[in-house]
C-alpha cells in the first residue's frame, strides 16, 4: 500500500520532542533578545527561526506519517534545488527540452528508493542520465557551448538530486539493521546533526571567530567556528547515537567528525558556486536563510558520505 503509516518507534518520538523543544527555546531566546535590545534589529534571526519551524514541521510530519510521503517531500526539495540551480546558471535556449528530461530524472530517482532498488538508485543518475542527456542535447543540433551545457547540467543533477537522495535512501534500508528507529532514526540523526553543525558553526564563529578559514570564498567562515562546530556536532553525535542509530561509541565519534567536516566542505562548495555566479544568496525561497541551495549545501556532502559510512558498517 502506498500510504500505509509506519509504526512510530518510541525513540523517534523522544527525538522529535527534543527537536521541537529546541525550536521553542530558540523562539523564546529570539523574543527575549529583541525585548532586551530594542535598538538592535533581530528581524532576520526571527525570520530564520520561523522558517526553521516550517521546515522542521513539514519534514517531521511527512517522516512520521509514512515513507512514501517522506520521499515525496525529498523529491520536492530536489525539484526546488534543481530549479534554483538552473535559474542561476546560464542555460541555452536550445536545451529547454533537455532540461525537461533532467527534471524528469527526479521522480524516477525517488521511485527507485520507493521500491528499494539499490542497484538502480546508485547508477541511474551517474550512468544512465549522464549518458542520455548529452545524447538528447545533440539531437537539437546546437554544438556551441555543448560541453559547458552538458557539464553544468550534470553537475547540478549530481548535487541536487543524486547526493540529496542518499538521505532519503536511509528510509529504504532494512529496518532490522537499526533497532533504534530504523531508517527514520538514521535520517533524523543525519539531518539533525548536519543542521546543528551549521547552526553551531555559525554561533561559535559569531562568539569567538577571529581567524578567517577561507577568506577567498566565504569571508564569514572562521577557524574557531569550524572547531566549535566540530566539537559540538561530535558530542551530539555520541549523545544521540544510542537513541537513533546502531552506532558504537567509536563509530559515533567518527560519524560526528565526518558530518562536521563534510558539512563544512559542502557549505564552501556551494559558496564557491555562488561566488562564481556573482550572487550572495542562491534565492529567496526561505526567508532568513536565502535560497534552497543555501539551506541544503551541507547536506549535499553529508548525506552520501554518512549513507555509505553507515551502509558499510551495518548493512
Amino acid at each position, binding site marked *: 500500500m502506498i500510504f500505509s503509516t509506519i509504526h512510530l518507534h518510541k525513540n523517534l518520538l523522544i527525538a522529535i520532542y527534543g527537536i521541537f523543544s529546541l525550536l521553542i527555546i530558540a523562539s523564546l531566546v529570539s523574543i527575549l533578545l529583541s525585548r532586551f535590545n530594542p535598538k538592535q534589529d533581530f528581524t532576520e534571526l526571527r525570520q530564520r527561526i520561523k522558517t526553521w519551524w516550517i521546515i522542521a514541521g513539514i519534514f517531521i510530519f511527512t517522516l512520521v506519517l509514512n515513507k512514501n510521503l517522506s520521499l515525496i517531500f525529498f523529491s520536492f526539495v530536489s525539484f*526546488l534545488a534543481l*530549479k*534554483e540551480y*538552473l*535559474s542561476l*546558471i*546560464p*542555460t*541555452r*535556449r536550445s536545451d*529547454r*527540452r533537455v*532540461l*525537461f528530461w533532467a*527534471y524528469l530524472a527526479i521522480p524516477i530517482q525517488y521511485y527507485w528508493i520507493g521500491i528499494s532498488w539499490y542497484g538502480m538508485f546508485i547508477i541511474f543518475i551517474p550512468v544512465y542520465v549522464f549518458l542520455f542527456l548529452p545524447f538528447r542535447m545533440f539531437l537539437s543540433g546546437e554544438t556551441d557551448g555543448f560541453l559547458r551545457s552538458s557539464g553544468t547540467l550534470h553537475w547540478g543533477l549530481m548535487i541536487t538530486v543524486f547526493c540529496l537522495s542518499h538521505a532519503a535512501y536511509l528510509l529504504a534500508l532494512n529496518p532490522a539493521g537499526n533497532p533504534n528507529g530504523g531508517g527514520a532514526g538514521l535520517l533524523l540523526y543525519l539531518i539533525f546533526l548536519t543542521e546543528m553543525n551549521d547552526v553551531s558553526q555559525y554561533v561559535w564563529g559569531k562568539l569567538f571567530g577571529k581567524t578567517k578559514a577561507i577568506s577567498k570564498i566565504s569571508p564569514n567562515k572562521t577557524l574557531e567556528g569550524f572547531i566549535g562546530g566540530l566539537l559540538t556536532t561530535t558530542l551530539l553525535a555520541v549523545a544521540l547515537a544510542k537513541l537513533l542509530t546502531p552506532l558504537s561509541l567509536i563509530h559515533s565519534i567518527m560519524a560526528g567528525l565526518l558530518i562536521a567536516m563534510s558539512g563544512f566542505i559542502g557549505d564552501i562548495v556551494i559558496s564557491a558556486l555562488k561566488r562564481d555566479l*556573482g550572487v550572495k544568496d542562491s*534565492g*529567496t*525561497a526561505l526567508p532568513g536563510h536565502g535560497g534552497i541551495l543555501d539551506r541544503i549545501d551541507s547536506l549535499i556532502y553529508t548525506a552520501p558520505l554518512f549513507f555509505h559510512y553507515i551502509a558499510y558498517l551495518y548493512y
Partner: protein
Amino acid sequence: MNAFLRLLFFVLIVRPLVLIVLGMNVRNLNRLPQDGPVIVVANHNSHLDTLILMSLFPLRLLYKIQPVAAEDYFLSNKLLGWFALNIIRIIPINRGDAIPMEQKLKNVSVALAEGNIIILFPEGSRGEPERLSKFKSGVSFLAEQNQDIPIVPVFIHGAGQSLPKGDWLLVPFFCDVFIGERLEWPENRESFMTQLDLRMKSLAAEGRFPAWE
C-alpha cells in the same frame, strides 16, 4: 457561476503553477498599490506573464483584475474566446490601425473608472524570449486620459524561458519580478514613453541575468 469557475481556476491551477511549479522572486512588492484603480505595465514574453502579474495581488482582488489582450488572437475561436473573456476576464483590444486609439481604449477607461486593476503589455505581443521590444504608444493615450491613476511598471524575467512563444512545453524556471515606482504624468505623451522606456530598462538592469541564446 463563471466567477466561481474563475476563482477555482486561480486557486487550484494558477497559484500552484506560479508559486510552486515556477516560483517567484518579487522585488519591492510594497510598490504595488493595495487596490484599484491601477494600470500595471509589463514586458511580455510568455502567456505566463499574465498569470504571474495576476498572482501578485491577493485573491480578494481577483474579481477586479483585467488584462488587456489582443482580440484577433484570443477571440479567434469560440472555446479560447469563452476562456479568455470569462476565466481570465480579458478586455479585448483591436490591434488594427483602422480604429482611432481613443475608441480602442474605451473599454479600458471604463474598467478603470470602475476601480479595476488593469494589466497591459505595451510591447503589443509576446516578443522573443527574454528580450525587450519597443513599446507601443497606446499606453500613453491611456495615461493621458487617466492622469490620476497610478501606472506601475513591472519587469518580469524567467517566464519567457519557462514557456516561450510558440512552445507548449513548460520547463520551470524561477521567475524574477521587479516592481518599479509609479510613473507620474509628464505633460505630454512623448516624454511619458521616454520615461516608461527608461524605467523599464533600469528595472531590467537590476537583475544582471545571463543572456539566453
